[in-house]
């Protein structure tokens, strides 16, 4: 019997819960760590980035208004659905990052577990960082964290799945929506993750994934007046570019998570910094009396 001819996948963008090609009609070749052809990925344009911001903004009321319990369940569901695609993620991580199967497996395991860790924070973070404030007067005064809104995330260039999850989950757990720029050279796990998100009860538009070149889309997002915050993790090691993006972000005083000098070890235990970076503190006063 002749060997079956494989059905190859078209890798597309993920915007507003749908999988469009780039409006530019462009794509670029993705290769494995040894330079062998893997796929043609959509090459997102500036227009795609702007469309993604519109989709992300539209999703803010629903997602930020969902109960924390609900958001926690949705994030946990992401982990469940990822588990079912475990083998596919291992293949893509091993090929893209040039890891052994054992190492790639460890990375995928940790990536799934990280969603579980963040899922649990959804209905706890407000108790940890919020407060009731004992003011010197007859007032009830409390402070609660609220999502800042739309966050542009430059995913790490090297760690294409664990790094990606480590920067994306803390954005959405707090009720923000995200426009994510996948690793330029290793975009496949991000695209597969977007297929997971589409089937995990994550409402369309909460996470939008763009593939392509950082130089095309990152400046648009950093300067976009309807983006509230930006994570520059993906610009690690490129201080000049990171500085340009931070300058652009100042135009509407975006909250900025700066790029590190080198990409960190994403296997390390995360802290709360990335959750709180995208949370605003709202303080409410009310008189106490009869």
């Amino acid at each position, binding site marked *: 019997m002749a060997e079956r001819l494989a059905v190859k996948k078209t890798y597309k963008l993920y915007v507003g819960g749908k999988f469009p090609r780039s409006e530019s009609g462009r794509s670029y070749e993705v290769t494995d760590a040894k330079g062998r052809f893997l796929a043609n990925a959509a090459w997102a344009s500036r227009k795609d980035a702007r469309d993604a911001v519109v989709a992300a903004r539209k999703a803010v009321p629903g997602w930020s208004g969902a109960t924390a319990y609900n958001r926690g369940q949705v994030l946990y569901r992401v982990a469940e659905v990822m588990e079912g695609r475990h083998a596919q993620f291992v293949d893509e991580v091993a090929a893209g990052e040039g890891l052994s199967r054992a190492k790639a497996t460890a990375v995928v395991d940790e990536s799934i577990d990280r969603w579980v860790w963040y899922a649990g924070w959804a209905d706890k973070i407000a108790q940890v960082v919020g*407060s009731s404030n004992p003011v010197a007067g007859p007032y009830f*005064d409390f402070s609660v964290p609220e999502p800042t809104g739309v966050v542009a995330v430059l995913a790490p260039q090297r760690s294409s799945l664990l790094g990606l999850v480590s920067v994306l989950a803390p954005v959405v757990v707090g009720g923000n929506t995200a426009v994510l720029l996948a690793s330029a050279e290793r975009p496949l796990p991000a695209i597969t993750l977007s297929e997971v998100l589409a089937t995990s009860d994550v409402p369309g538009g909460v996470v939008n994934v763009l593939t392509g070149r950082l130089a095309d889309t990152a400046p648009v997002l950093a300067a976009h007046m309807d983006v509230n915050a930006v994570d520059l993790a993906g610009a690690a090691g490129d201080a000049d570019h990171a*500085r340009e993006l931070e300058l652009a972000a100042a135009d509407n005083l975006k909250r900025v998570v700066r790029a590190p000098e080198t990409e960190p070890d994403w296997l390390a235990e995360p802290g709360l910094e990335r959750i709180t970076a995208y949370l605003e503190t*709202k303080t409410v006063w009310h008189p106490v009396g009869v």
Partner: protein
Amino acid sequence: MTKFEYAPAPESRAIVDIRSSYGLFVNGEFVDPVDGSMFKSVNPATEEVLAEISAAGAEDVDRAVQAARRAYERTWSKLSGRDRGKYLFRIARIIQERARELAVLESIDNGKPIRESRDVDIPLVAAHFFYYAGWADKLAWAGAGPDPRPYGVAGQVIPWNFPLLMLAWKIAPALAAGNAVVLKPAETTPLTALLFAEICQQADLPPGVVNIVTGAGDTGRALVEHPGVDKVAFTGSTEVGKQIARSVAGTTKKATLELGGKAANIVFDDAPIDQAVEGIVNGIFFNQGHVCCAGSRLLVQESVYDDVLGRLKRRLGTLRVGDPLDKNTDIGAINSADQLARIRELSEVGEAEGAERWSPECELPERGFWFPPTVFTGVSQAHRIAREEIFGPVLSVLTFRTPAEAVEKANNTPYGLSAGVWTDKGSRILSIAQQLRAGVVWANTFNRFDPTSPFGGYKESGYGREGGRHGLLAYLKGEH
């Protein structure tokens, strides 16, 4: 309503002793500027020159930052949290002891009514130091991990509207967390900061832990851009805030920014109207409207519009504008000729764009900088007086029909510092408070401040919080 004639009740200024000139406070002593110049601080209520003030040049700023660095490395970071706290408690006590002197000096230099400097500003200053003093030996419980560290040297730039209170908001948490500071007060209101320097001397605070460099924008820029500064804290305009955000781009400096606002004060038809009117007055005419979180956009539900406006105008007819040192005064002087010009300009634009301008009859003193309480009605969202921060006693009134429309209009601004809600319905308060994109929401009250209560903005009103545990985190490196 008739205004009762009160006999003047002036607070004596004998308690303050203003020197003819002041140096910079660097490394625990007053020094002459090495590359700076001198400028004058005037009493905005009389235009009388109060003192000659040093404008620090780049070299002066450098010396202050170096002094702070030495103090941080050699003294302050080696001290136990307990001892840092005890210095702050000392400072809080001296502020309480010298409260009257500070209040009178603040009113003379700033133009604010003595009633406010005496009853609001200075008590809050002391409370702020007292609050953060207690944090100094409890940093491990602040929520920044088990071993939080200070940044090192904090460069702090503050505005002229609450001169000593803004100093307290900056210096108290910075010192509690273990940082040394270089602070630049506003050029029109340096005197209480310089008196605070004397208080640091009285408290035997180690030299260099607090440095005060006076001057204008150039001095502030030199401080913010100094490579020896690890942490920048700024309160002021959104425009300058953006410049600072740009200047720290690509550095490791951490910045917190507390910037402008255009707060909506929303009055629903079931609100207790008399209380709401008091809240409206307090919201926009407190401190001559020189308040970043002032309730400068009044949103009134249409069904009670006539009633609210009628009572508001009657109430404004009873406000006393005049001598800041008179204990009966409600509204004092505008802080500077520049600020007065800006308020006048925007008010003229308001008229030109078609809004209707109203002020109660009130006699303004001949000398000094004065502006009557002013209300604009018929204001649309597109008017500049509804969009731009006026930072003066000018209220823009808009109307709404439904709660959704109120929220929509309230949030229709790039700012997001504060907001007010007036209604008798508890569930509505919570729902509206939740939907407002603002860092502080006052429900059935306005312009309340407390050292335990985090304060700061959303969107272009800046980032970071001052006050409470959140305010402490702005000065601590760690996991938060």
